[in-house]
C-alpha cells in the first residue's frame, strides 16, 4: 500500500514536470498562441445589418390622371433627387420602394409623370430602423399620410401648395418636421373646396385635364421637384407654351405661370407651418473634406497627409472629441444660458468618443448625414446639447487604432460651440482635414498677415476679434475671430466654395434636417 502511494506520487511528479517542460516549450515556440486565444476568445458577436424599410404608396390608377406603369422618383426636401429610391409604379398605380435600414428621410417628394400628366405627393417620414433585430419596417402611405392616398389631383394640389408656400418663404421641405407636414396636409385638404384654395385646386384640375388630353406628350404639366427652384414654379412653362391651356378659366390661353403662382400665394397667404425645434438639443453636422488639393485658411494647398501614416485600404475617417474643459457646468453657474448638466456632458462625451481615437466613424457613403457617397467629403450628424463647447479633431486610419499616424495633427484640438449662427436650425461645421488655420485651439497656423495669433479662444473679453494676454479672461493671447470675417472661429462659419479664398456660402447640410419636435397645442 505504501509502495503504491509512493509510485503514484512519483507518477504525479513526473506528470507535473512534463507539463512544466511542455509549458516552457510551448512558451518558447509560439505553441501558446492558439491556446491563449482559445481561453480568452470572447467569440465576439457580429450583429446583423439593419433591416430594410419598405414604403408603399399608390398613384391614382383609374381615370384620366392615371400614371400606372410610370417611373416613380423621389426628391429630398431641398429638391435633390434620391436616385437610389427610384422605382416603377405598377399598372394599378401602386409602388413599393426598399430603403436601406441605415437611411432615414423626412418629407420626401414623390413624383410620377405619364404623357402630360404629372402627379406629386409627399412621404412625410421614413425613419431609420431602430434595432438591427427588428423586422423590416413597413410604411404604408395610406396610413402614414391619408391625404396622400392615392396620389391624385387632390394630393398633388396639397403638395404644390405646401411646396409653393415654403418656396415663397425661402425655405425647403427639409426645414419642417414630418408632423408639421402632416398637420399641413390635414389643414389644407378640407379647404380645397372653398375660397382661394378652390381657385387654386380648379387650376390644378384644369391643367391636369389638359395634360390628360396629351397622352403622348413628352412635356409633363408639373416639373420634377429638382427643377422647381430654378424654374420658380412647379408649373412647367414649356407645357403652357406647347399646348394652348386656359387654366384660369378666362377663355384665354395662359402662357405664363404667374397666375398659378399668384393663386398659390393667395391661397396660402395666411398659412403658417408648425415648426418647433427641440428646446435643449440641436442637430450638429460635422463635415470633413478629405479631397486632395483643398486650400487652407492661408489660401495654400493643404498637405492633408502631413501627419498621417499614408492611406491604406480599410482606413476610415473618424471624429473624436469631448466636452471642453472650459465648458460652464450648471452646478457652478446655473444662470448661464447654455450651462451643461452632467447628463448633457455625458451625452456629448459618449457621442464623440471621449477622446478615444478611431472609434466614431464619419461617412462618405450617402448615409448618416452624408450628402454624396464617395465624393471625399465625410459627414456625420449628432443631436447634442445647445450651446455645448467641445474640443474635437478628425482621424483617418484603421478602426480602433491609436493616435499616432492617424490624427490631423499631434496634440491640440478644434473648438466648436453648438450655436446656430445662420438660423437654419442646425449647426453645420465644415472643415478640411488637417487644416491647422481655422478653429485649432493652439499652435494655430493662420498666418499673422491674415490675422493669426497662434491661439483660438472662446472669449476675448471686450474684443470681438483678437486680444492680448492683458485682455484675455484666461490670460492667454489669441483670437475669437482671427480672420475677421465677422464669424467666431469656434462656431459654424461660411466656407469658400469657389476657391477664391473668400468665404461665400454656408455649408449645405445635405440631407440632414433640423431636429424638430411636434409643437404643443
Amino acid at each position, binding site marked *: 500500500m505504501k509502495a503504491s502511494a*509512493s509510485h503514484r*506520487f*512519483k507518477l504525479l*511528479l513526473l506528470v507535473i*514536470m512534463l507539463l512544466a517542460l511542455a509549458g516552457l*516549450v510551448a512558451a*518558447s*515556440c*509560439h*505553441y501558446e*498562441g*492558439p491556446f491563449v*486565444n482559445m481561453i*480568452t*476568445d*470572447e*467569440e*465576439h*458577436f*457580429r*450583429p446583423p*445589418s*439593419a433591416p430594410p424599410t419598405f414604403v408603399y404608396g399608390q398613384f391614382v390608377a383609374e381615370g384620366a390622371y392615371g400614371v400606372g406603369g410610370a417611373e416613380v422618383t423621389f426628391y429630398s426636401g431641398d429638391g435633390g433627387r434620391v436616385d437610389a429610391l427610384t422605382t416603377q409604379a405598377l399598372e394599378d398605380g401602386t409602388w413599393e420602394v426598399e430603403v436601406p*435600414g*441605415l437611411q432615414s428621410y423626412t418629407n420626401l417628394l414623390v413624383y410620377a409623370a405619364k404623357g402630360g400628366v404629372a402627379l406629386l405627393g409627399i412621404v412625410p417620414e421614413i425613419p*431609420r*430602423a*431602430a*434595432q*438591427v433585430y427588428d423586422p423590416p419596417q413597413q410604411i404604408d402611405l395610406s396610413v402614414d399620410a391619408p391625404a396622400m392616398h392615392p396620389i391624385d389631383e387632390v394630393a398633388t394640389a396639397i403638395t404644390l401648395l405646401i411646396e409653393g408656400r415654403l418656396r415663397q418663404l425661402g425655405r425647403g421641405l427639409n426645414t419642417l418636421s414630418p408632423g408639421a407636414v402632416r398637420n399641413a396636409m390635414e389643414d389644407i385638404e378640407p379647404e380645397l373646396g372653398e375660397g382661394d384654395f378652390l381657385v387654386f385646386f380648379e387650376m390644378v384640375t384644369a391643367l391636369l385635364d389638359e395634360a390628360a388630353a396629351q397622352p403622348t406628350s413628352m412635356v409633363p404639366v408639373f416639373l420634377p421637384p429638382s427643377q422647381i427652384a430654378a424654374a420658380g414654379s412647379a408649373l412647367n412653362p414649356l407645357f403652357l407654351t406647347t399646348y394652348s391651356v386656359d387654366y384660369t378659366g378666362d377663355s384665354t390661353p395662359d402662357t405664363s405661370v404667374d397666375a398659378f403662382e399668384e393663386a398659390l400665394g393667395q391661397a396660402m397667404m395666411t398659412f403658417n407651418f408648425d415648426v418647433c425645434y427641440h428646446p435643449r438639443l440641436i442637430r450638429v453636422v460635422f463635415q470633413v473634406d478629405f479631397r486632395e488639393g483643398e486650400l487652407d485658411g492661408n489660401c495654400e494647398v493643404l498637405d492633408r497627409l502631413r501627419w498621417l501614416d499614408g492611406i*491604406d*485600404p*480599410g*482606413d476610415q475617417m473618424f471624429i473624436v472629441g469631448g466636452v471642453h474643459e472650459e465648458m460652464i457646468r450648471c452646478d457652478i453657474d446655473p444662470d448661464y444660458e447654455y450651462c451643461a448638466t452632467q447628463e448633457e456632458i455625458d451625452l456629448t462625451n459618449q457621442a464623440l*468618443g471621449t477622446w*478615444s481615437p*478611431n*472609434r*466614431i*466613424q464619419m461617412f462618405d457613403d450617402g448615409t448618416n448625414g452624408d450628402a454624396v457617397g464617395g465624393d471625399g467629403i465625410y459627414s456625420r450628424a449628432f443631436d447634442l446639447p445647445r450651446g455645448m463647447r467641445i474640443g474635437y479633431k478628425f482621424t483617418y486610419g*484603421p*478602426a*480602433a*487604432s491609436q493616435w499616432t499616424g492617424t490624427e490631423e495633427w499631434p496634440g491640440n484640438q478644434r473648438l466648436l460651440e453648438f450655436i446656430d449662427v445662420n438660423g437654419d436650425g442646425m449647426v453645420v461645421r465644415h472643415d478640411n482635414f488637417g487644416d491647422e488655420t481655422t478653429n485649432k485651439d493652439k499652435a494655430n497656423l493662420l498666418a499673422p498677415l491674415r490675422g493669426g495669433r497662434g491661439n483660438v479662444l472662446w472669449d476675448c473679453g471686450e474684443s470681438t476679434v483678437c486680444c492680448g494676454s492683458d485682455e484675455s479672461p484666461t490670460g492667454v493671447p489669441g483670437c475669437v475671430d482671427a480672420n475677421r470675417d465677422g464669424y467666431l472661429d469656434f462656431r459654424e462659419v461660411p466656407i469658400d466654395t469657389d476657391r477664391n479664398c473668400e468665404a461665400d456660402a454656408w455649408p449645405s447640410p445635405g440631407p440632414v434636417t433640423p431636429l424638430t419636435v411636434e409643437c404643443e397645442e
Partner: protein
Amino acid sequence: MKTSSVRVATLVLVSSTLFWGLEARADIRNWDISGQIYTKWLYRNNDQMGIVNYGNPFWPENFSGDNGVGSEFEWNIRGTPSRFVTAYVRVKSRFGSTWHDFWENGDFWYPQENTSGQSLGMDHAEYMKLRGYAMDIHPPYAWLDNIHIGSTDVGFFNTWTFGRVRYIDRDNTKGVFFQGSLLDGDLRWTLGIIALPRLWAGPGWSTGVGDVVLNNPFHTMDYGYALHMDHYLDALGLDTIVDLLFTNDFEIDVADPDADGSLYPNCLDELDNAIPGCEPDGAVDLEGRYRQFLGSLQLRFEPVRDLGVDLLGAIAMQRINELTMSNGVALNAGVSPVPYKDTLDWAARARFDIVEPFGARNLHFQLEYFNIGEDWVNTFSARREDDVLLTDGFITGGGQLPTLNIANEFMDFNDGFYESCIGWHGGTLLIDYILGNFQFLLEQTAITYNTNMQDRDTDAVYPNFLHHQGYTDTWFFDYANTLDRGRDPRAVYQENQDRFSLISGLRTTWDTGWLTGLEIEAFAKFIRDTDGRDLSTDRDDYTGNLLFTQLKFSLPINNEIDINFGGNFDRWDEENRSGNPAEGYSDYMTLRGRAFAGFTFNFGGATFGYHGEWVLKDQEREIQGDRTLDIFRSKAYLTVAW
C-alpha cells in the same frame, strides 16, 4: 520522499544546464565552412532578357527571361560548439543579376532601366542574404534525440501531409522540431511547429496578405503543427507510419473592439445600439481564416517473400472562414489553390512490388492502385520535385502531386513540370525486365476521375485555372497561354467532365558496349484521353490520341566528359481539343519534334554542363488557323564547390 524527489529533479535540471553551458567552446576547429559558385547561361532565339525561364507567375519581376548569364555565391557554415549542439548557417548572394548588370547597386530610383546603376533594384544587386539557419540540440535523454530549431525542408513528413519543400526553398521553411524514440527505438517520432510561409501556404497563395477582405492581415501567428510517427514491429516486419498535420491561419477578429480596423470600435452596431457583451479589454482575439487537417497512415510489410506491400490511406479536411478569406475562384478567374468550400475527402494508394516472381530473374512487377477524392485539398503538399504515383503521367519529366498548389515556376525550360493528380482513380502496372544488355520498362495505366461531374460550379467553388482544355505542351509553356499551350497542369476541375484515360509506355535502354560505353535509350508513350464533357450532347466530346517518342544516345568519353544527343517526335491528334458550346470546338493536329545535344564536364571540383535543343512544332487548328513554332534554346552551368 517528496522533498527528496524535488531535490533530485532540481539537481538534474541545474547540473544539466551547467554541464551543457560549461561544455560550450568557441574555437575555429569547431567551424566547418564550405562555399560554392554557381553560374548559369541561358540562350533562346528571342528578345527576352533574364536568367530564369519561368519566373514569378503573379508578381512582376525583372529577372526572368531567356537570354542572360548570372552567378551566385553560397557560403555554408557549420558549427559545433559542443557535442550536444550543432549549428548551421547558409549565406547566399541574390540570384537575378546578369554579368552585364555589374553596376547595379540595389537602389531603385528610376522607373525605367538606365545606366545609373540605380534602376533595377535589389534583384540585380547580388547582395548576400542570410538564407538559412538552424540549431540542433541533442539532449542526453533516451526519448529525445534532437531539437531542431530553424530552417528545414520539412523532409521528415510525407507529401500527403506536409511535403518536402522544393530545393530552392530548402531553408525558407522554419520551425521547431522535437525528434526522439520510444519503445526501445522501435517508435521514432517527430513533433514540429512550422511557421507557415506567407508567400504560398494558403488560399490565394498567401496566409492573408493581399486578401481583399482583410485590411490588416495577421500572419505571424500562423503555424502548422505536425506529428510523424514511425513504428517498426520486428515480429511481423510491419512498418507503420503515421503523419498528422494541422495548420491554422489566424486573422484578427475585427468584431473585437480592441482590434485595429475593428467593425465595432465603439461597441455599437450600425444603428448605434450597444452590442451585448462587447467591451474593450485591451486584448485582441483571433479567428481562423483557413484551417487544414491532414492525416495519413502508411503500412509497409512483406507478407511473403519477394512481395512488398505499401498501403497508404489519408484524409484531408479544410475549413474556410468566409469572413476572412475571399473567394479566390470567383475573384481570380478560377485560379486558386483551393476550392472555396469546406471539404473533407480521402485518398488511398496501394502498391505491390513483386521482385523476380516464381524465380523469374531480372523481372520486377509493380502494381499500384490509387484513388484520390475529388475534394482532396492539400496546400502543404510538396509543390514540385516529388512524385506520389508510379505512372509517368501525362507530362513526362515531372511527376504527380496531390495538390493544386503546384509550383511550375522559378525554373528553366529543362526542369520538370508537375501535374495535379487530385481526383485520379485508377491503376498502374509497371514491368521492369532486364535481358542481357537490354532493360525494358513497360507501363500501362488506366485512369478514371472522381472529378467527373456535370454542372460543377467552376465559377465560385472549384478552380478551373482558366485554361483547362487540350494536352499540355510544356515545351512551349507560358503562364498567360499566349502560345495556346493547352491545359494548366493544375486544372483538374471542369464544369462538365466525363473523362477516361489510358497511358501506355515503353522505355528501352540498350547498353551497347560500343566505343567507350554507348547507351541507347528508346522511349515511346501513347495516351488515349477521352472526355464526354457535357453528356447532353456529343458535339463537344474530346478524344485525344497522343503519341510521344524519343531516341537518346549517351556516351561517356572519359572520366570527365559525358555527352548525349538525340531527338523526339510527337504526334497529337485531338478531336474537339478546345472551345466552348457557343463557338464550337476546334480539332487540333500537332506534330512536334526536337533535336538535342548536351554534355557534362567534371574536372578538379568544377562541373560544367550544357544542354541545347532545337524544337519545332506544327499545329493544324480547325478554327484558330495553322501555326508553326520554331525555336532554339540552351542552358549551360558551371558549379565550383570547395
